[in-house]
């Protein structure tokens, strides 16, 4: 087999044993890699219905088909477990050197079972596995943990995926971090923490064989050259933070806990401002010619020296959405999240929920007491210093940080039960996951894509904002096309997440990012890597199958139609300012859109998947368990 080893490594933390599972080539043709293969491994290895923090919830890595090859932006892997945020599939992606090391160690996937009694890290040294004591690593941040493991193994080529203090303390939205990149959103870090697994480290020394090296090199060269042109200049020069001003001008920048879509100080927290005043350098993932990560530093004031990579999603959640116009505070907050190993979006939105709760009198100053703040904190919108203090309390799980570290769903449920309040009305989540920084009340197709998202409302798992923002449809109204658009855009995204390829490359194949522009090149890349004979339609099937296995996983875990919903605020409160003022997504409108979407997917009115549909996608075993 070319491009793959045909082997999945299983590691049991409870028994401290390992075994190898060989998979046939036909299995790889179905599941490919990334989030699709990781979810499939989760489907095969989880005990259905288990608690996310149970030893029965496995950690499933699935490498990318192009990891370690010349294919640009193909150095990525998928990570899946049952999410403690949602109770459904938690599928994430991360990139860079870790995936290449895993490929060179000849593992297409790794499944970690059980739980350890003592803190350990797992060292995969080609085909040898060591369980190593991690006591000395406890308390270290994510980046420092990687460095400490290299020192421990006396090898600077070892690559590690790690958790930080937030994962150790089981902050529900803790991340897994490797090479400065995060597998985020769905709480993998806390699953690792529940297993007392501080890191997975890999040393890979083997070569990677592809079917047609000459063709793959030529294709890769052409894509790399295009990736240096205008299609990626936004990412290369300013990074994704340039979205701040774009969003604000469209009335879509979540502001003060999603109360509005316009922030009066957007210029001060913009990508343009960041570039002028804080940028230190740009950083690329391994195997990437774009280099989008804007490493940025605080240069004055109490947080001088704080430094991390700034992306739009982290930035909106820790600036406009907190009412904070001080970029120094935003950088410091994101540094706390990145080094502590927390999802910066969920952290920021949990703090914005607390700010609104304070301003509405649900939370009091004394609720924010800690050793460092014996009198508490007046956590109003705009209080950057207070937000930093609360972020540290979340990371360290002290005081109110224990509640806010559960995310907005659980935090609001806890406080409403205790105080008889209605803070759920401003708890921004769906399925338990905090949403992206795209104000869905002004993006009606994206609102549907967010509601039906298998891991919760996510800008990466659906591209349904694209028809709204590109002017293809009226973003303020709905019509019968939206179900098909939501289906089409989520399956489009699933193709990239399965290979995986970073979506920022999507225009660099032919100049057009649509299926007709991208699929022929992706066919060529797959065939040159594997020697297969994939055709255009097979790429569509990759996306549909990837999305379907995630939905099937959720159904087996108890998903119901009513789980496809939006935050209360988005369904009941119109914004009052800016170009998107007056708009919201009513429950009636959402139910209409869901009907369209389920129909477009070929599912039942209840959102269940017919057996024939699953069988036609090559999933007879899935059909047996969840098909109707």
């Amino acid at each position, binding site marked *: 087999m070319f491009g793959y080893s045909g082997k999945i490594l299983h590691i049991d933390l409870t028994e401290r044993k390992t075994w190898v599972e060989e998979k046939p080539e036909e299995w790889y043709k179905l599941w490919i890699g990334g989030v699709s293969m990781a979810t499939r491994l989760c489907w095969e290895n989880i005990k259905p219905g288990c608690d996310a923090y149970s030893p029965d919830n496995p950690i499933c890595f699935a490498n990318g088909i192009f990891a370690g090859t010349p294919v640009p932006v193909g150095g990525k892997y998928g990570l899946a477990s049952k999410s403690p945020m949602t109770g459904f599939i938690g599928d994430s992606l991360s990139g860079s050197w870790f995936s290449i090391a895993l490929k060179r160690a000849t593992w297409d996937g790794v499944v970690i079972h059980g739980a350890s009694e003592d803190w350990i890290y797992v060292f995969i040294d080609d085909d040898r596995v060591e369980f190593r004591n991690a006591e000395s690593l406890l308390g270290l941040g994510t980046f420092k943990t990687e460095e400490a493991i290299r020192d421990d193994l006396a090898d600077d080529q070892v690559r590690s995926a790690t958790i930080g203090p937030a994962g150790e303390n089981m902050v529900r939205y803790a991340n897994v971090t490797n090479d400065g990149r995060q597998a985020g959103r769905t709480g993998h870090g806390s699953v690792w923490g529940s297993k007392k697994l501080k890191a997975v480290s890999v040393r890979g020394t083997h070569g990677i064989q592809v079917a047609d090296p000459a063709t793959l090199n030529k294709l890769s060269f052409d894509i790399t050259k295009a990736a240096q042109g*205008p*299609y990626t*200049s*936004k*990412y290369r*020069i*300013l990074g*994704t*933070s*340039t*979205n701040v*001003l*774009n*969003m604000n*001008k*469209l*009335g879509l920048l979540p502001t003060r806990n999603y109360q509005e879509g316009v922030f009066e100080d957007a210029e001060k927290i913009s*990508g*343009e401002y960041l*570039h002028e005043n804080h940028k230190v350098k740009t950083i690329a993932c391994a195997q990437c010619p774009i280099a*989008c990560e804007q490493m940025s530093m605080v240069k004055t004031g109490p947080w001088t020296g704080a430094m991390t990579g700034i*992306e*739009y*999603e*982290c*930035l*909106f959640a820790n600036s406009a959405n907190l009412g904070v116009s001080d970029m120094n505070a935003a950088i410091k907050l994101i540094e706390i999240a990145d080094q502590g190993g927390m999802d910066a979006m969920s952290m920021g939105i949990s703090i914005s929920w607390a700010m609104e709760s304070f301003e509405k009198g649900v939370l009091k100053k004394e609720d924010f007491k800690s050793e460092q703040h014996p009198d508490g904190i007046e956590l109003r919108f705009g209080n950057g210093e207070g937000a930093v203090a609360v972020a540290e309390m979340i990371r360290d799980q002290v005081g109110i940080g224990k509640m806010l570290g559960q995310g907005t769903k659980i935090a609001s449920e806890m406080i409403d039960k205790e105080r008889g309040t209605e803070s759920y009305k401003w708890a921004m989540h769906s399925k338990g996951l905090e949403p*992206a*920084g*795209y104000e869905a009340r002004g993006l009606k197709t994206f609102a549907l894509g967010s509601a039906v998202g298998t891991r919760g409302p996510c*800008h*990466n798992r659906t*591209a349904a*904002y*694209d028809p709204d*923002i*590109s*002017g*293809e449809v009226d*973003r303020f109204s709905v019509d019968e096309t939206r179900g098909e658009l939501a289906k089409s855009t989520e399956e489009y995204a699933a193709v990239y997440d399965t290979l995986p390829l970073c*979506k*920022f490359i999507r*225009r660099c194949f032919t*100049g*057009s990012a649509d299926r007709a522009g991208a699929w022929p090149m992706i066919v060529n890349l797959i065939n040159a890597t594997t020697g297969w004979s994939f055709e255009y339609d097979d790429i569509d099937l990759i996306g549909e199958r990837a999305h379907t296995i995630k939905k099937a996983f959720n159904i087996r875990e108890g998903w119901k139609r009513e789980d496809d919903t939006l935050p209360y605020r988005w369904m009941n409160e119109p914004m009052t300012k*800016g*170009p998107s003022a007056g708009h919201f997504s009513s429950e009636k409108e959402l139910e209409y859109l869901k009907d369209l979407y389920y129909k477009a997917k070929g599912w039942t009115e209840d959102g269940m998947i017919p057996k024939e549909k699953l069988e036609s996608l090559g999933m007879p075993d899935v059909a047996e368990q969840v098909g109707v």
Partner: protein
Amino acid sequence: MNQMHVTVEFTGISRMLTGKTEIAIPLQQGGRLQDVVQQIGHRFPALIGEVINEDGRSMIPTNLFSINGEQILHEDQLHYQPKEGDRLIMLSLLAGG
């Protein structure tokens, strides 16, 4: 013919290449967005090849115009006729983060 004025706002790459946050553009009544593109390409040649195509009249598809933050027009809709006082916002396509 009567002349009117519209405002072009720059963000992101277009702001970096022009060094401006916004400019006022004179436009004949009935003029089209394509004429605006041509004017700003002529005034800021650095935009050519990065935001505006080499023909000087059409947009590279990763860039859009928003009219007053509401209507969004892509590269195939440059026949739009702006109105007096319109704010034409040059945006990069949004994605990721």
